Structure formats: structure tokens, C-alpha cells
């Protein structure tokens, strides 16, 4: 098993100056992929989590495959029906099919979360990379700014930002993304600081490689593992944050379905129609839990214990 994990040539490449980086990245990724696949098969809970996320993503991409009902169609005569064969998740106060609304809401919730994660990942990584590699006064200045951002609870920061950006799903995503920049920046900087002390980086610099290419070819690839794990973890957090902002009414404007907004819509009916909060709420909870478990799989090495 361990032979599968770490081929010795790969280590040599990593340490060497002239290894072909593209090829190395491919082998690294496919190796990780194989490990995870084997891990998944061995762990039923992880497998279930992958299924949950896959279903959520499928619902986001092709909602029509799951339900033929129109999520916007109002039917006053069918309002507040409890879940049954026709309406698996029941209907809301306007008689709209809740299953259709949850399924159609997946697209907006997940894409907002994806945008948020991308914003945080790209902006945060750039900031952390620059600060860590350049060091000195710039590093100190940028990281104090990051400290300030970290000191403010991220949901509070996102709420403030979305009030300035205006209401809407994209604004919500940008706000959530911006509030996660600090976390990514800090992690990336720590990784860069760790890697840049390695002998092969010093060797590259001494050999006369340009700083930018050292950064790109020798430092960036080695920070990937930790940052990817944080990305997966942050995706779950982003879904939660986007839903929370949607719950507060900052996100999708009615009648567009979105998970957080659906929970908010049912809040007044906890007594009389529990399914209005339970259905979209379960969608959020299951997706987030599943993503958290998957991010753990990224983080911890699989293999025999």
C-alpha cells in the first residue's frame, strides 16, 4: 500500500531543480484521486457524503431531471399541504410545490457558494502569496490588515458588506467571499513561509532562477494540499453563510427559490407547517455536513491505519 502512496522518483523530482512540473502535478493529482477513491469505498459514511454532494450538484445543474413541477406556480387551493406522494416536501403558503423549490434552489445556493469560495481562494491566495514571499514591511502591513479582518466575525462582516453592495445573490456571494479572504491569506502565507525555507527553494534562487518563476514553479505547487482542504471546508461554510444571508433577506429576491430564503419563508409556520423549514433546512444541513466530511478526507492521508 505504501508503495502506491509515495513513489521515490516523485520525491526526487520535487527536490530537484529541473523536474518537469506539469508531469509531476498530474501524477500527484491522480495519485491523490486514487487514494480518495479507495478511501471512499472503504468508508461508507464518506461514500454517503459523496452521494449527497453529487445529488445536490446534479440538482443544481439539471433541476428538471428531479421534478417536473414549476417552483414558481402559485396554487391558492393547495396551500400548506403536508408532504405526501404528489408533494414529497409539501406545499408552502402560496401552494407552491416545496420539493420543486428546494431542487431549483440548489442551483442558486451552490453557485453563490462556489463564487464566494472562488473569490476567497483567488484573492486570499494572492494576498498570502505576495505577503509571504516578499516579506518585510509589506508582509507586516498586509498581515495586520488581515488580522483586523479576522477579528470581525465573518458573518457580521458579510452582512455589513452586502448592505453596502446591495441585495442580490451575486452581491451575497461576493460579500461572503470577501469575508473569507483573510482566512485564505493567512493559510497561504504560512505555507509559503514554510516552503520558502526549503533547501530546494534556496538552491533555485542561488542558481539564478527569477523570483517569480521560483514562486510559480517551486513554492505554489507545494502549498496546494492545505489550501485545497481549506477550500473544500470553506465551501460548506460558504453554503451556510450564503443561506444565512438569504435567510435574512439579503440574497435572492422573491419569488426565486434559494435555500436560506426558503427557511426564512417557513419560519412563521414552524407551528403549523413544519415541512416549510425542515425541507430546505435539511438540504442545507446535509450538504454542509457532507462537504465537511469530504474536506476531512482531503486533509488526512488515507491508507491503512
Amino acid at each position, binding site marked *: 500500500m505504501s508503495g502506491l502512496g509515495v513513489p521515490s522518483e516523485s520525491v526526487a523530482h520535487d527536490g530537484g531543480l529541473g523536474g518537469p512540473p506539469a508531469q509531476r502535478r498530474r501524477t500527484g493529482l491522480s495519485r491523490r484521486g486514487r487514494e480518495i477513491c479507495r478511501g471512499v469505498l472503504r468508508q461508507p459514511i464518506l461514500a454517503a457524503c459523496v452521494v449527497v454532494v453529487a445529488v445536490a450538484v446534479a440538482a443544481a445543474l439539471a433541476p428538471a431531471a428531479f421534478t417536473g413541477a414549476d417552483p414558481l406556480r*402559485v396554487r391558492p387551493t393547495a396551500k400548506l399541504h403536508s408532504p405526501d406522494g404528489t408533494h414529497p416536501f409539501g406545499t408552502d403558503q402560496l401552494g407552491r410545490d416545496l420539493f420543486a423549490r428546494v431542487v431549483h434552489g440548489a442551483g442558486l445556493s451552490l453557485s453563490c457558494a462556489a463564487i464566494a469560495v472562488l473569490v476567497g481562494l483567488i484573492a486570499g491566495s494572492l494576498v498570502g502569496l505576495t505577503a509571504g514571499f516578499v516579506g518585510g514591511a509589506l508582509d507586516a502591513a498586509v498581515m495586520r490588515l488581515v488580522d483586523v479582518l479576522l477579528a470581525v466575525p465573518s458573518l457580521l462582516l458579510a452582512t455589513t458588506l452586502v448592505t453596502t453592495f446591495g441585495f442580490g445573490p451575486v452581491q451575497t456571494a461576493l460579500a461572503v467571499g470577501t469575508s473569507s479572504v483573510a482566512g485564505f491569506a493567512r493559510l497561504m502565507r504560512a505555507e509559503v513561509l514554510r516552503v520558502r525555507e526549503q533547501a530546494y527553494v534556496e538552491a533555485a534562487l542561488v542558481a539564478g532562477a527569477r523570483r517569480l518563476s521560483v514562486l510559480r514553479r517551486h513554492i505554489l505547487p507545494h502549498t496546494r494540499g492545505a489550501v485545497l482542504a481549506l477550500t473544500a471546508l470553506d465551501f460548506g461554510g460558504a453554503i451556510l453563510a450564503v443561506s444565512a444571508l438569504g*435567510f435574512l433577506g439579503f440574497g435572492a429576491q422573491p*419569488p426565486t427559490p434559494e435555500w*436560506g430564503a426558503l427557511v426564512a419563508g417557513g419560519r412563521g409556520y414552524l407551528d403549523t407547517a413544519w415541512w416549510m423549514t*425542515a425541507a430546505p*433546512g*435539511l438540504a442545507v444541513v446535509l450538504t454542509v455536513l457532507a462537504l465537511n466530511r469530504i474536506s476531512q478526507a482531503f486533509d488526512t492521508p488515507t491508507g491503512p491505519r
Partner: protein
Amino acid sequence: MVTRGFWSVHVLSVGLAATLGFGLAGCGGSGGPAGAGGDGSPRTGGNLRLGLGVDPVCLDPQQSGIADAINIERSIVDSLTAQDPKTNAIVPWLATSWQVSPDAAGFTFHLRSGVTFSDGSALTATTVRDNFDAVVRAGGRAPLAASYLAGYRGTDVIDPLTARVRFGQPNAQFLQATSTVSLGLLSSATLARPLADRCVSGIIGSGPFVLDSYVPRQSVTVHRRAGYRWGPATARHTGDAYLDKITYSIIPDGGVRAGALRSGQVGGVTALPVQDTSQVRQAGLTVARKIIPGVVACLSVNPFVSRPAIDDSSVRRAVVKAVNRAEVVGTVLSDDYKVATSILSASTPGYADLGASLAYDPAGARKLLDAAGWTAGPDGIRRRGGQRLTLAVAWTTNGGPDQEVLELIQQQLRQVGIELTLRQFVTGQAFPAMQRGIGDYAWGAGAFRTDPDILRAKIVLPGPVVPPAPGSPADRLNAALARQAATVDDAQRRKVVDEAQRLAVDAGITVPVYEIPAVVGLAKDVRGFAFTASANLFLYDTWLGNG
């Protein structure tokens, strides 16, 4: 307030955990204070706990306009006159009689003698003058009260108990305005304090209760004043109030508020949510309601925009016809609400029944749009010259069922090929956004006032940016609204108000939807509860059966 604190943390951190079965709203049954003690005759004593939906923000009656603030202030502050909730007649309170000059520009009030404020100072004509002068000085910080005093020239102190209020032009609505809390009388000590300080403490009135404390976003407490001898002519008893204390708790979440009532944590709640009303009734609790006089819940045209769709009177009139008001009331609301039959609710003086103009008529709406050249597009939304027939609504919510109503109207308009988009704003930001040209319509969830002048105060007049063409309905509406304020003769004023309502509805400048009730849930042992004419709480006669 543990419940409230818990709820807000809960909402902010992971509101979604609500789904995990924290049945906050549902906690407890209908336990409550047991049984109806008492033999029907009022008892003195007891602490009435009330749950309010909205934080009053400012307890100075001159500066506030929030319904729940007025609900509290009515217990602390008395007015010159009172309005009979049944007949809408103006009856004596702190003024025993009054005369109105023929041109409605001078009002002479004869004050009741022996009235004192809770700080011991006496009510005199000078106090009346100080109060009205203070409102005018506060200007923009007292928008509602100042609008009642438009054209104010001054108050003459004729003798210690006679005051004459003068206006530069006729001000027909002023007499009714003296019955409102906004023009309630405060002691000179209160008026001497800075405006901002007055919001949270030191509100001294001559009312049956005295303010103890106000903790913003948490609670307000008042206690009974001993020696109160000047209740309004509308009251059912004289002398001191019955309740020892009233504790108002701010419980913003509707479900929690209803739960607090059903579990007996509070003896009454304001703004009982639609979806909880039937359960509260089933639990044997009282649901008191009164349709709020004034402007109904409606869409009104944003006067700051000029766009082809909203400028087209056929489109505006089609919207009026395409809204199925009965479906709105039947689906989203309850029997406590009423279908609007004018822009004014039926209990407002001067109301004209325009039910025929407000009938649901989708065929008529389609015909209007066809004739105006809006033809059906591929997605069901009409187009004209490549332009989609889409209208935007700027709206805010105050905790009512606004969103559900708007979503339903959105679908109803879609049936005739009109797309309605909703733009939500936080309170206070909708109006600036409208000024920037956002939203073809504004959603207004009504406005309290038992006088038709509310039309002028609450509907933003057509055309501040794009002046309406001379002779157009919008231009005539502006003229009619200005004229009603200046018309003294009651019959004549009714005629002008009648015309204004027709113009507002027939030209589609407003789209009335439903009449809004004030819905108050009360525990079994709360007796003698009444609404004022403007549908605020009147707790002077209220007593507790087991008190």
C-alpha cells in the same frame, strides 16, 4: 428577555438550525393564567405584560411614528381631544370645548382645569403653545407631527385656560390631528430637554400611566398614576386606571410572540401573525382586531421615475384590474383582513366605495394592453417595440405578510403578461432608492390616520421630477389633494376627497389591495380592552380578571 436574546443569536449564527426542531414558537401549550376570575366588574391591580412586534425606537410622541411606539405613548400622554372609535366624532379630553374659525385657520381650545402632568406641573394655555412651538422647531425630526401643523403661525395664550392656534392658511384636518398621540401634550420640563434625550427617557405627560423605563430593543415599563381625573369622553370609567403596571416587551419574531401569548408569558401581543391567529383562537384566547383607518396596503407609482411602461396609463390601469384582491385575502391573509374598495379604508371619513373599479378583471386588463400595443412575447411576458413589459416594486417589510402578498400579485400579473420584479430594501432605504429612480411602484403597507388628509401625507405626490402634464390625472390628483386640505366645509371636502380617490384609482396611480387590521391577541383574563379610533391600544379601561 432570555427568549429574545436566544432567538436573535440563533437567527444570526445558524438560522437554519431552526429546522432541527427548535419549536420555539410552539413551546408550551395554551396553559396561561388560569381561568376567568372576576364577576364582570373591573378590578384594580395587576401587571399586564404585552409583547410588541417592533421596538419603539423613540418614545417622544412628537418624534415617533411607529405604531408600537404610539401604542405605548397613548398610555402616558393625553391629547386635547379624543376621537370616538365608532362614530369618528371628535370629543372632549383635555380641552372641554373648542371653536373653529370659519376659514379653518384659527382654533380656540378651552382647557379643562385642574389637569396636572406627572411631574406636578399644571396644564395651561402656555403649555399648549410650548408644545406646538416645539413640534415646529423640531421640524424634520418630527415629520408626522409637523405635517399636522403645516402653515402654523403661532398659539395665542388668551387666558391661562384658553389657547388659540393660528394657521397661515386653512387647515381643515387640524382638529382631528389634536386627537392623535403625535400632538399629545408634554410637560414643559420634557420640552426643555434636547430632542435626542427625549427619545429614551423623561417623557412626562398627563396620562393615566407614568413612564418608568425604556431599555431599547428590550422593554418599556409604566406604572399607574394616582389621582388621574381627566380621562377622555370615550373612556368607560373615570378616575385612576385599573392596572398597576404595564410591561411592554419587544418580541420581534411573530412566531415567538404568538408562542409567548399561548404559553402565558405575556397577557397580550400586538401584530399577531396571520398564520398564528387561528391557533390562538382555538386555544380560547381573544383576538381583537380593528381595520386601521387611513390608506390601505397598496402599490403606488414612484413619482421619481419616467419610463415607457409605467408612464402608459393602459399599463397602470391593467395592473389595477389584474390584481385579484379576493385571492390575496383568501390565500395569504385571513378573514381579519378586508379587500380594499378604495385607496382609503372603509372606516376612514370621506371614504368612497370604488369597489366596481377595483373588481378582478383579467380580460379587461388584457384588452387594455392589447389596445395599447403590448403583445404577448415568447415567454408569456408582453412586449412593445422590443421592450418587455416589466415593472419593479421597491418594498420593505415591517414584519407583516408583505412578501407573500407581493409574490402572489407577481403571479397574478404574470397571467396577463406583466412581469413584476421585487426589490427589497431595509427600512429607511426604500425612499432614497426611489429618488434614485429604482422601482416603478412602491409597496406601502398602509398608514394610520382617521382623516382623509392621510392621502396627502402618505402617498408621494405624482411628479416631483417629471412634472405631470397639465390636466393629466396625476396633475388633477395633486390639485385635489391640495384643495381638500384647504376646504373647510365638510360636505365640500368630502366631494374633493371623493374626486382624489377616483383619480388615484382610475388612473392607476395607486393599486389598492387590502385593508389592514391591527390584530391583538389577548389572554383570557384581560378585560376591558379597547382600540382608539386610529386602531392603537387604549389600556386605560383594561383590567385583569385574576388581578
